[in-house]
């Protein structure tokens, strides 16, 4: 399908596709098996100028937006959803600075992220605060020109590997969600440590760790926006980044579909390739249609974001919800196409299914997405 | 589409072209395409892109409707062809020892010289290498042109080029053959330019056109997908390089004798701008691949680097060398020096055992002239079976160790 991409977007997509094919595909299984962080791929991404596709030109980026972010994430995910998320999680950690950072903060952090010198991460989730972001327990206490952070963030993608973290902490407990603020914290700051690396079902090339703050003192200048804006920072960031998760899901689904189609043309049973059986053809047709529908929705939302639409909460949630459900279904079906081979680790398809699952969970579970969508629907009805 | 170059003539006869696309499919250089044309019989007309066309004539033969006409223009010979007589072989030596590819070239050179009714000579350049001349005679040379100098001990492009250019100018051979080694390929290319004559690389067959008394040089192109026979009609000498192991070594006949022609040249011709400051030999622990009589090769089907252990074990028992397909090398299971095929080494062992190798054309290009080919592969459709003398459809991890065991018994190892 032709999505009327710009010349630059096509260039971005083709380059990401080349990296995925030539550099990621050969190492995807190994990183998955050994749970190693793909630094060599991050280096390739940096050398290819892909790390800053969504960052403004004056900060060393390419000047693209959500669409470029989606294209890169999708293409990388087609080869490995785990490696793709190392890139996409940096975008998630960077968006708060792009959206709410002042010029000084942008000058300080964005060029190194755009050039790929540094990775970023975003830290909201805690043991007691998942979907209920208002329940976060990490605190930031103001002391003169500084804030002092205490608390533990959980399951932070790129945790330990990233240099730059945007962290949501409570500056005023009394105010609940309105008492949260967002901070930029650099790796190496005294009082900032990491917990153990988590063992995961999928996206195993990516690193997921706890962030531990123990009387961690940071300058006042590291506050993003104003005190009390933390929750808004998080929500606006998610609005922009959810198409990225949707794109990851689309890529994973497409990758699994590619393998299924290829296999169906090679595998022979009853003297014929299995692709000649109509039962299997119908499966492939459904899978392809679903992937395309998910892609169309994802790109539409990315375009909305890029054209400056004010409120994209509902559409963002729809894209993330739909694409991640498609990814789960298509990857499961892809295994079915491969039969017993699909279930074996010698073949790459089972990994796609394991990688797909997280897209239904993180950056807001699909149940939360449905809440968001329903809430917006009802609001619209009220407004008439 | 570019215009037709003025001096060569190949053209599509519009009235005859039926738009059948046979020529498009046949053209090895992708130089023909179909365009819509009102003039053509069936609305489609073949057109030739003259930037790609080499006038090989493949399309002329393929066209069933006589719609392609080609006449290769006559170029007047650049030299007096009749002055050139004799077949020469460059006797490449390393550390004073003539390389075995030279004896292979002498074997073929003798045939060519006999077919032309002329003499066979070897060109030997080095430092104190005269003793090597005797074996060159035993292997069929009638003459050895010998140039000795302390500065010529090791091969250097410039002095070696200068010497051979001078020898050719003085003695005028009609054919000059080199081994397609790293030395031979560098040297021959340079000489061809200096003498303004043709050079055909990596020939797999050399014959004499009986009528015209010229050399027919056949070589693979496009990774062995096609073969081309190449002529050098109007320039002399006709030069070719031949890979090691393509031709059989000439037999030793110790009764043969010959004449040594010694030449020396002034220092300016022996000077080299490049200087060898160090020579490092990397001795491989196993048998040299191109010399091996038995090769056991592994490919993608091994599945992992460790798979080469079973390959090595069989090779060891058989006293053979270990080879590999390009995909096994690309996966970094084994170093490039083991690669067999178009971009690796050409081998011609007595027995070639391909384990888990599908047999892509570029691999076949490097091993299909082996005497016996044994293919072991899970996939009964693998192209390797189409060249195999013995095919085994099965798991190499069962078959190869069993073979190793069997030959341990047979060879009492």
């Amino acid at each position: 399908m032709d999505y009327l991409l710009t010349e630059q977007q096509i260039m971005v997509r083709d380059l990401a596709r080349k990296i995925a094919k030539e550099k990621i595909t050969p190492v995807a299984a190994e990183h998955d098996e050994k749970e190693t962080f793909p630094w060599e791929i991050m280096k390739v991404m940096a050398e290819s100028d892909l790390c800053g596709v969504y960052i403004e030109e004056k900060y060393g980026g390419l000047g693209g937006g959500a669409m470029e972010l989606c294209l890169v994430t999708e293409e990388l995910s087609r080869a490995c959803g785990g490696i793709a998320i190392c890139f996409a999680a940096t975008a998630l950690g960077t968006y708060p600075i792009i959206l709410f950072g002042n010029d000084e903060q942008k000058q300080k952090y964005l060029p190194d992220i755009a050039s790929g010198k540094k990775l970023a991460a975003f830290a909201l989730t805690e043991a007691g605060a998942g979907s209920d972001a208002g329940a976060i327990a990490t605190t930031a206490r103001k002391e003169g020109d500084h804030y002092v952070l205490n608390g533990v963030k959980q399951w932070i993608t790129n945790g330990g590997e990233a240099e730059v973290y945007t962290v949501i902490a409570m500056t005023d407990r009394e105010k609940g969600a309105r008492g949260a603020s967002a901070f930029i914290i650099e790796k190496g700051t005294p009082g900032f440590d990491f917990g153990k690396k988590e063992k995961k079902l999928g996206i195993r090339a990516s690193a997921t760790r706890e962030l531990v703050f123990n009387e961690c003192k940071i300058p006042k200048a590291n506050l993003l926006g104003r005190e009390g804006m933390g929750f808004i920072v998080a929500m606006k960031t998610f609005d922009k980044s959810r198409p990225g998760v949707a794109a990851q899901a689309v890529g994973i689904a497409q990758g699994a579909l590619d393998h299924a189609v290829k296999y169906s043309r090679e595998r022979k049973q009853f003297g014929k390739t299995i692709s000649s059986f109509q039962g299997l053809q119908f499966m492939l047709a459904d899978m392809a249609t679903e992937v395309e529908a998910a892609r169309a929705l994802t790109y539409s939302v990315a375009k909305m974001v890029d054209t400056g639409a004010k409120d994209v909460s509902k559409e963002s949630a729809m894209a993330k919800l739909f694409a991640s459900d498609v990814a789960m279904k298509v990857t499961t079906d892809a295994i079915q196409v491969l039969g017993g081979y699909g279930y074996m680790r010698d073949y790459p398809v089972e990994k796609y299914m394991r990688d797909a699952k997280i897209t239904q969970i993180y950056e807001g579970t699909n149940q939360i997405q449905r809440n968001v969508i329903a809430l917006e629907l009802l609001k619209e009805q009220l407004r008439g | 589409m570019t215009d037709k170059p003025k001096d060569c003539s190949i053209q599509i006869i519009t009235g005859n072209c039926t738009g059948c696309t046979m020529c498009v499919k046949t053209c090895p250089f992708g130089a023909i395409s179909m365009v819509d044309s009102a003039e053509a019989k069936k609305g489609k007309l073949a057109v030739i892109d003259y930037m790609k066309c080499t006038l090989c004539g493949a399309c002329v033969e393929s066209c069933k409707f006589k719609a392609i006409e080609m006449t290769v223009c006559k170029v007047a010979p650049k030299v007096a062809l009749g002055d050139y007589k004799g077949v020469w072989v460059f006797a490449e030596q390393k550390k004073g020892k003539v390389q075995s590819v030279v004896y292979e070239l002498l074997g073929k050179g003798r045939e060519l010289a006999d077919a032309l009714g002329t003499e066979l000579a070897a060109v030997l350049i080095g430092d104190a290498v005269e003793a090597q001349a005797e074996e060159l005679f035993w292997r069929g040379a009638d003459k050895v042109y010998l140039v000795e100098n302390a500065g010529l001990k090791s091969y250097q492009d410039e002095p070696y080029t200068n010497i051979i250019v001078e020898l050719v100018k003085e003695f005028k051979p009609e054919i000059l053959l080199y081994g397609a080694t790293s030395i031979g390929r560098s040297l021959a290319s340079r000489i061809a330019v200096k003498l303004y004559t043709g050079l055909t690389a990596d020939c797999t067959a050399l014959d004499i056109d009986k009528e015209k008394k010229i050399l027919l040089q056949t070589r693979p192109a496009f990774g062995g997908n096609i073969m081309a026979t190449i002529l050098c009609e109007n320039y002399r000498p006709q030069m070719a390089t031949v890979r090691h192991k393509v031709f059989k070594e000439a037999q030793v006949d110790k009764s043969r004798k010959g004449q040594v022609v010694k030449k020396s040249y002034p220092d300016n011709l022996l000077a080299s701008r490049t200087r060898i400051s160090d020579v490092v030999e990397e001795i491989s622990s196993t048998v040299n691949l191109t010399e091996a009589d038995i090769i056991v090769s592994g490919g993608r089907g091994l599945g992992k680097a460790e798979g080469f252990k079973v390959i090595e074990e069989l090779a060891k028992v058989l006293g053979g060398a270990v080879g590999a397909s390009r995909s096994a090398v690309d996966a970094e299971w084994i170093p490039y020096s083991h690669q067999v095929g178009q971009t690796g080494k050409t081998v011609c062992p007595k027995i070639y055992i391909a384990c888990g190798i599908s047999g892509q054309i570029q691999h076949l290009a490097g091993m299909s002239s082996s005497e016996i080919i044994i293919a072991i592969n899970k996939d009964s459709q693998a192209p390797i079976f189409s060249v195999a003398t013995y095919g085994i459809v099965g798991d190499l991890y069962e078959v190869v160790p069993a073979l190793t065991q069997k030959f341990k018994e047979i060879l009492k190892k």
Partner: protein
Amino acid sequence: MNIIVCIKQVPDTQDIRINPETNTLMREGVQSIVNPFDMYAIEEALRIKERLGAASTKVTVLSMGPSQAEEALREAVSMGADEMVLMSDRAFAGSDTWATSYTLAKGIQKLGKFDLIICGKQAIDGDTAQVGPGIAATLDIPQVTYVKKTEDIKEGLAKFERMTEEGYEVIETPLPCLITVVKEINIPRLPSLKGKIKAKQSKATVLGAKDLEVDPDRLGLQGSPTAVKKIFTPPKRTGGQVLQGEVPDIVNKLADSIKDVVISVSKT
């Protein structure tokens, strides 16, 4: 320092298949790529440029071929090459390695002062390995073929490791010189986005026969000493027997068939 990299656009021979019915090449879907060995040449030029300083070093890529070959030049620019030159003229048609070497050498002379010319060791469509040394001979400069490492390079002087059948030689050479490089020398980088954008905006300088100081009799088909007389598909080696049965039986059958050869080999 001025570095010139000579590259060629070739069909990806890996993609080429023979149609078993007509015994002809199947070209459908065969992509044009930069000759893989030339990718190492481009990468080495860029590495030398990085080593010597980007400001003082210029990398020019040069190709002879039809106008589509500009795509190959663009790829080099997207990796970081500074300029591209396309030699395209119907007078160059039908060139063999001699005429190609001559034409490229004349193009290089036209470009002005140069210090280093880098070529891939050979092109995968012809596999001749002749054009690199041919250019060096035409320009009468030293050559170092099969280079696997640039040890040292400075104004007027360089040191390379040249791969041989037994190992390698270290060769010192004055500049200007020409080298041909092998796969071992480096791992080519992927293009960068900024490079791709630059490549999109740049245009190749096109040189034709009229722009060169050449002897027209030495160009193209006329200037080529060799001519292709005929092209044919290699005789197919026909498959032999497929051994059937259980593994021990197969192994016994095979061992019986080849045992004499193995024993005779092990005795020599």
